[in-house]
């Protein structure tokens, strides 16, 4: 049976069509989910796409966190059952919802940055990265103004220790992220937040590579195996 992957559209979501396209290219069926409906339509996994939900005037993701759909999504994700990938604004929403620790703040350059970014995939046991080799380098577009990951030192240490850092920027973090963090996961490995945009690296014609497809195909293997995910070296 084809996996059904929900893509949530908030007012101000921008990369929702792109995320749906990536889901389709990976071989799954994208299902549109509307922020205002507390209904996950029985999907197998959810992508929170990039964009500027509610304009992000207050703080990125701060308002989207309270959308009706989140009342269904948060408990399912927290329990470890529902795989969720938050990309860029989606990552910000996951942090604001406390599904992931820390926060994303203004780029150290203070400017929006759009560039083809090399990442190193570190955690390869999550629902979204099991298809990558540990340490594999990939090129994926980064495009954000508030992508600098911050958390307390103790939290950062814990993330490192538990193998929950999913990806790091290769070289100096372009946005000032602490410890070069580009993406992290929760303790179950089902919830992943990533600042760069894998959905924009799924076609050779329009992306800098097709390296991003691995996030979506990883999900399919994960769903197919039916095995619980575990985060890193525990």
């Amino acid at each position, binding site marked *: 049976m084809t996996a059904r992957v929900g893509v949530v559209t908030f*007012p*101000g979501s*921008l*990369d929702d*069509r*792109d995320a749906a*396209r990536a889901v389709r290219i990976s071989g799954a069926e994208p299902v549109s989910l509307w922020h205002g409906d507390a209904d996950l339509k029985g999907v197998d996994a959810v992508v929170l796409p*990039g*964009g*500027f939900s*509610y*304009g*992000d*005037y207050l703080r990125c993701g701060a308002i989207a966190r309270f959308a009706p759909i989140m009342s269904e999504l948060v408990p399912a994700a927290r329990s470890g059952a529902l795989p969720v990938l938050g990309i860029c604004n989606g990552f910000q929403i996951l942090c604001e919802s406390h599904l992931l620790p820390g926060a994303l703040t203004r780029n150290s350059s203070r*400017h*929006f*940055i*759009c*560039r083809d970014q090399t990442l190193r995939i570190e955690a390869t046991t999550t629902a979204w990265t099991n298809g990558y080799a540990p340490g594999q380098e990939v090129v994926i*577009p980064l*495009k954000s*103004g508030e992508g600098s990951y911050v958390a307390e030192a103790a939290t950062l240490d814990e993330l490192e220790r538990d193998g929950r850092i999913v990806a790091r920027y290769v070289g100096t973090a372009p946005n000032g992220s602490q410890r070069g963090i580009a993406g992290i996961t929760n303790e179950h490995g089902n919830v992943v937040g990533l600042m760069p*945009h894998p*959905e*924009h690296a799924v*076609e050779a*014609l*329009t*992306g800098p590579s097709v390296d991003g497809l691995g996030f979506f195909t990883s999900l399919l293997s994960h769903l197919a195996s039916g095995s619980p995910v575990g985060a890193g070296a525990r």
Partner: protein
Amino acid sequence: MPEEPRFDTVAKAESTPDTPQPFAELGMKEDEYDRVRDILGRRPTSAELAIYSVMWSEHCSYKSSKVHLRQFGEKAPESDALLVGMGENAGVVDVGDGYAVTFKIESHNHPSYVEPHQGAATGVGGIVRDILTMGARPVAVMDALRFGPADAPDTRRVLPGVVSGISFYGNCLGLPNIGGEIGFDAGYAGNPLVNALCVGVMRHEDIKLAQAPGPGNKVVLFGATTGPDGIGGASVLASATFDEESHAKRPSVQVGDPFLEKLLIECSLELFAKDLVVGIQDLGAAGVSCATTELAAGGTGGMRIELDRVPLRDPRLTPEEILMSESQERMMAIVAPDRLDEFMATCAKWDILASVIGEVTDVTPEEAERGGRLVMTWRGETIVDMPPRTASDEGPVYERPYARPAEQDDLQADDAARLERPRTDAELREQALRLLGAPGIADPSWVTSQYDRYVLGNTVLATPHDGGMIRITDEGDRGVALATDGNGRYTRLDPYTGTQLAYAEAYRNVAVTGARPLAVTNCLNFGSPEDPAVMWQFAESTRGLADACRQLGTPVTGGNVSFYNQTGSTAINPTPVIGVLGVIDDVNQRLTSAFGRDLEGARVFLLGE
């Protein structure tokens, strides 16, 4: 006896014919004012004066440029591609398989000098609404920019603000930026150029026009509330010489809300898809004045508006201010009464405020003869009763005098032969490096890296390639390519050839992507049309573009004229920015400007003279 209203009404205008009116302050000439009195057979009310002054401003009426722009139609080459020509919000071109593309470039120069970030941001917002209004989904933007010297103190204020404004608005809307230009010259120090282009895609059958047919149909204003943004902007900002004085009496700046515009786009596209609108117009410069007169003129000619029903951000606004406000993110639709509920429900879904402010009315044959009949009331009193066509279509037309300036010969005589040439390798090297390091030539990625070029996932080419290219649907391989070019120095030296040069460069930039050039848009940035030398530049430039378009077979589908780009009495170098659009059947066949990998041993050819 009922109390006299405190505001001006038609009844008052009839009983007080000699009340002096501030037409000059609103940028109107005495003979224009006299013509309004002629049309109405009485003095205008202050609301009518507001409408005529903005609609007859240079910015809205093209009164100085019209006689020259006609050539674009008269000399237009045969083209099967043109579905909607000049005159609508934007031209529409057939790109095959039942798809059509609409594109246009527009200036926001003066507001971007006053408040660079908001000025540039709202420039993007405005052109995007123009494209949306045609029924298309906006799919990409471009920006052509000119600034004073890179190291001038004011450039440090203006440039980062402009770039952040474009980046903020375009990125938040989710429109990829697929190209543009950036140039520097002392002439732009007090008058930067911010020209924004947008392109949209639709099916042939989805084309929408600015018209209000069908008496009884409702006039609905939807989007943002109306505030005191840019009041007087249309006539004072866009049409009066930009000098210290107007810097001092700053109008209330237009602030953009891209989030609202994003919702407005999605909401409008859903309204179109459900076939809930019979006519639509965006509110740009001249706001409600422009939308009501143009929609009425494009339909039965009759419309009745209750101005009190316009939702306000600031309850103190007067009717004149409501008519002139340039608040962003607003649209006006004509909706059949039996579809109104569904229209309102769709707006509610997207959290978009919508209000019925009036309806389309029938006109008598005599009224139609006069140019229709637009009536507006305020607190129950009639404050406007005028033929809308006289404001929207029958504005003044000037044959401004023009003359080749005497200094043109000296300018041309001062050619490159007079420059010292490098004599040694070291000098040559130094010169080459200096050239490559010049701000207008060096890598612009410090600008372009602030623009999202990936969003929507259909960007095939963007910076650093010569032209931008997008795939127009997810299903097929069809695409369009775009490039903009302009060269103020060349155009100053020879406006006719310089404009053709800009056009040819844009044409080549599209051709080298592998696309077939189809159509042209242009933004003509010039000094004051009241200066015969500037007017000569303009006449030559438009003649050059019209001739070139005929030669190469691409019609001009639309564009924008920006006059009064000057500091004091010094005009900028005439800067026509030309945008060329091409079509490619299979985007996988596109060419990039890089030589590519694994081509060792391949030959390099230089084509041309």
